């Protein structure tokens, strides 16, 4: 009833007016009947009734929901004011939308990779099983994205555990979808039979895998495809179920499609095809299923009802000794075996899945969230300043309203309504910007070799976050000006004439402190931006020991060529020679590992019978490798025709190697052995060359000792050939030439290309992300602070027109007026810079882990940021200063 009346309250009011009018008419009639003159009769009737307006107001109040009505009217009034000041509204909404949008976008990413749980049934029951403390280190081969366990370990855990309702083991890989020509890869996972049931993921179409699909030695295995793959590659047709799918040259049967929201277990990544682990031998050159030293599986488990993580961990610890005893790799050295047998399994919470994205970017994202938070604070300070100026202009109006009895709370509420309107529109715009920005961020992080996938649906957390931001900003920038505006004594404000008491030192002090805060915060952000930009620059300019420009990496898969082990060496040499002979190719060489690609191979060496503790990185390269990568040869010779499978084993080492193991003396002619397990032959390598140091796995690392072995001495290589190739010809020309040359020689070879530039580029992703975003936010912060300073200085000039006019009339020259205003601005700027410098030094330590080649409190960076801010600030205050000096005293004084 009340709500209905609320919306009909003006109709009700009309009704009352008519009713009261009818009373007056009846009473007037009766008064006339009593003998009064008509005029007098009506007046008496009105007197008898009392104050009609008050009656109507009383009834109106009864019909209305007081707060709602007031709020609605305040909002309408606020909207009208904003329409009257489109410039102010635009600046306010734009800066808020940018601030809120940036915050929301970063939060959205954090939410997606850090906070949200996996799209499976009861994710809180999921735990990850892995070795609690890998003291002494794990030895062996590590492949895939989560190499936590070996297959024999998984089997033992599966057969012995009693704590879990089901286990979900998975290993990641990529499956080539083509049988020849240029390779096309699908993201694959090998999973155990229980995988989908343990997670509680049901097929959208067909069925998921079950235990029967995962019998050892399966010959024509089943495959479950992801929703995305089904749409993209299989046309989204139901008939795809039962069809055959070629993976690594083997036919798989598609039995089901996973639901759209299921992206796998790794946040930040998706999968295309899931096949049972029993099919692993079909898709790999050498199966790892029986290898106790090949780590390639991740393992999740679902806790049984009533089991806690602690209880499960205790249970795992109890069965660990037996499990590790039974799976101890026979090829291990005694010390490796010792640490292996001491391992203990444990359970870790895994409801939010695992994520390398999280590991690599979580710190960066939190830092960026802090950055965008500061940008938003600066934007709020700007708005607070603008609103303070507006409040001053409306001071007399507010004083009048206070004087005639408006309550202070009521006026504060009205002023806040306008702020709320601004922040709500700003937050709405922010959501739109966030959508675009987070997509940009994900696109930024996505590379050819790392196809990241982040579910960016806006969930309630993002909405709550944005809503909270809107309210918080509204309070930050709106509340103080509103309270300030209403705290004036009405009498004082009215008396003060056109120059309100807002000019007082105290009142103006608030606006000045806001500018100081803005300058300080933007200095912090500009310093941060410069640190990240300089870090990136350091990494890009650093002498990595090779030149990646113009280097193409060619990967050849010879598995389909039918060339047996012994014939491969000759085939490799022939293919390398063909590529080297191509027109436009300056140099080409076989390379087992491409620097900074992320792959590595290390081992310890033995010199003169003594094992050295320092690990050495290895690579196996063909002749011309150093010329191709432009790594200078310092002494000795490159590999050549003399180095065959029959000749003496040779090696080329780096300076760092020579310094570590030969005390910097010329290592040519010296020998070393590679440490191997017991019973394995240890060939002796003679050092024939010395090259300059080069980076190995990562640009950020220190130079490590590297030993290059001769590819030509590897008798039975795996059927994969990787060639690095330097050419000055356009990329497209080179790739098509290489493709036709290889196809002509070996039609069944599968080829894949990558430029070394893009590999290096991708390896600096985090640095580029931080440099780009913090640079952008630093600029934005500087811009906002400049606008703030400009606003305050212009406003001050405006309010002091009178005084400046008098000064000029009394003979002050223009220069001294400019100097006076600039001095004023310089004080604010200096205060801001000092506070900012302290804050920047305090805050910079959070960045130290993300910096390269410079200290967080780098004085040059700090100075550069201060100079840059000073320059724009000087410009921003020069304009109002000049305006002040051009005042016509007569005009300025007449305005009073």
């Amino acid at each position, binding site marked *: 009833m009340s709500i209905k009346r609320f919306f009909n309250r003006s109709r009700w009011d009309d009704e009352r007016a*008519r009713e009261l009018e*009818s*009373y007056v008419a*009846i009473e007037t009639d009766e008064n006339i009947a009593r003998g009064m003159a008509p005029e007098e009769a009506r007046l008496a009737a009105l007197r008898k*009734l009392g104050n009609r307006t*008050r009656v109507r107001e009383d009834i109106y109040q009864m019909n209305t929901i007081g707060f709602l009505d007031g709020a609605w009217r305040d909002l309408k009034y606020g909207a009208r004011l904003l329409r009257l000041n489109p410039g102010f509204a635009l600046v306010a909404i734009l800066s808020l939308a940018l601030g809120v949008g940036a915050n929301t976008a970063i939060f959205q990413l954090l939410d997606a990779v850090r906070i949200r749980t996996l799209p499976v049934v009861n994710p809180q029951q999921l735990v990850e099983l892995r070795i609690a403390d890998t003291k002494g280190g794990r030895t062996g081969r590590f492949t895939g994205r989560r190499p936590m366990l070996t297959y024999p370990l998984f089997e033992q855990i599966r057969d012995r555990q009693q704590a879990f309702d089901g286990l979900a083991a998975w290993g990641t890989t990529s499956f080539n979808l083509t049988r020849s020509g240029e390779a096309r890869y699908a993201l694959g996972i090998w999973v155990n039979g229980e995988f989908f049931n343990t997670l509680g993921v049901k097929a959208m179409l067909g069925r998921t895998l079950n235990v029967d699909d995962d019998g050892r030695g399966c010959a024509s295995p089943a495959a479950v495809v992801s929703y995305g793959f089904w749409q993209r590659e299989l046309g989204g047709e139901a008939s795809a179920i039962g069809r055959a799918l070629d993976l690594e040259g083997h036919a798989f049967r598609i039995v089901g499609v996973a639901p759209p929201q299921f992206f796998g277990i790794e946040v930040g990544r998706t999968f295309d095809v899931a096949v049972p682990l029993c099919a692993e031998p079909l898709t790999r050159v050498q199966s790892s299923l029986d290898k106790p030293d090949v780590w390639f599986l991740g393992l999740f488990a679902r806790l049984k009802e009533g089991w806690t993580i602690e209880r499960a961990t205790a249970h795992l610890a109890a069965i660990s000794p037996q499990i590790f005893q039974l799976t101890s790799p026979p090829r291990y050295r005694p010390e490796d075996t010792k640490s292996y047998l001491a391992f203990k399994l444990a359970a870790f919470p895994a409801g939010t899945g695992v994520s390398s994205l999280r590991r690599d970017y979580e710190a960066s994202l939190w830092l960026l969230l802090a950055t965008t938070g500061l940008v938003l604070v600066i934007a709020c300070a700007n708005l607070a300043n603008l609103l303070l100026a507006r409040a001053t202009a409306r001071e007399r109006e507010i004083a009048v309203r206070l004087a005639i009895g408006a309550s202070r709370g009521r006026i504060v509420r009205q002023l806040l309504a306008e702020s709320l309107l601004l922040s709500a529109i700003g937050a709405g715009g922010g959501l739109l910007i966030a959508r675009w920005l987070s997509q940009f961020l994900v696109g930024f992080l996505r590379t050819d070799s790392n196809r990241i996938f982040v579910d960016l649906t806006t969930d309630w957390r993002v909405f709550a976050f944005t809503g909270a931001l809107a309210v918080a900003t509204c309070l930050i920038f709106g509340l103080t000006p509103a309270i300030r505006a209403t705290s004036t004594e009405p009498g004082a404000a009215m008396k003060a004439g056109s120059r309100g008491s807002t000019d007082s030192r105290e009142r103006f002090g608030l606006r000045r402190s806001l500018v100081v805060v803005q300058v300080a915060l933007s200095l912090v952000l500009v310093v941060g931006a410069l640190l990240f930009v300089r870090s990136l620059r350091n990494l890009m300019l650093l002498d990595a020991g090779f030149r990646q420009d113009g280097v193409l990496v060619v990967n050849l898969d010879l598995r389909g060529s039918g060339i047996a082990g012994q014939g491969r060496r000759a085939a490799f040499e022939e293919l390398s020679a063909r590529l080297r002979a191509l027109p436009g190719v300056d140099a080409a060489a076989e390379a087992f590992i491409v620097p900074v690609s992320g792959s590595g191979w290390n081992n310890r060496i033995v010199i003169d019978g003594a094992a050295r503790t320092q690990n050495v990185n290895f690579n196996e390269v063909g002749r011309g490798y150093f010329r191709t990568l432009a790594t200078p040869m310092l002494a000795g010779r490159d590999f050549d025709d003399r180095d065959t499978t029959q000749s003496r084993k040779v090696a080329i080492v780096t300076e760092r190697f020579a310094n570590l193991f030969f005390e910097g003396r010329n290592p040519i002619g010296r020998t070393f052995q590679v440490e191997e397990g017991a019973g394995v032959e240890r060939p002796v390598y003679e050092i024939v060359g010395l090259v300059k140091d080069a980076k190995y796995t990562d640009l950020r690392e220190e130079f490590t000792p590297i030993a290059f072995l001769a590819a030509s001495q590897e008798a039975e290589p795996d059927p994969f050939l990787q060639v690095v190739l330097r050419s000055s010809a356009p990329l497209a020309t080179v790739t098509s030439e290489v493709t036709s040359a290889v196809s002509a020689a070996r039609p069944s070879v599968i080829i894949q290309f990558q430029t070394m530039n893009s590999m290096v580029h991708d390896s600096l992703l985090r640095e580029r992300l931080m440099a780009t975003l913090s640079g952008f936010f630093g600029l934005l912060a500087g811009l906002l602070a400049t606008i703030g300073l400009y606003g305050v200085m212009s406003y001050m000039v405006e309010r002091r027109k009178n005084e400046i006019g008098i000064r000029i009339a009394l003979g002050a020259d223009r220069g001294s007026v400019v100097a006076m205003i600039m001095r004023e601005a310089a004080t604010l700027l200096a205060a801001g810079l000092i506070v900012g410098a302290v804050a920047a030094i305090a805050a910079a330590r959070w960045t130290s882990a993300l910096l390269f080649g410079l200290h967080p409190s780098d004085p040059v960076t700090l100075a550069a940021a201060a100079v840059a801010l000073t320059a724009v600030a000087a410009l921003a205050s020069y304009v109002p200063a000049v305006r002040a000096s051009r005042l016509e005293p007569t005009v300025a004084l007449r305005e009073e």
Partner: protein
Amino acid sequence: MLQGTLDLLILKTLALGPAHGHTIGYAIERQSDEVLQVEHGSLYPALHRLEDRDWIASFWGTSENNRRARYYRLTPAGRKQLEEQTNRWDEIVRAINRILRPA
């Protein structure tokens, strides 16, 4: 006038039959032998409140001297309310009398 008694007086007046605001005001004054003087304006918020509670209902009609007027009549709920409030009033009066004139 005592708080809440105006509502009771309006309900009692309407118990005699439908009436408009003007009639109600004069009726109260007349019935009380001009002791209770009602500010006629204050009747209308009270009428509105009673109608809001569904104790009375309103309709537009024509007055004795041919004027359009808004008439009010008692609803069954209002009649019950009148009974209850009258009883309560009697109780209060008896209680106050017991204090003022102890037997």
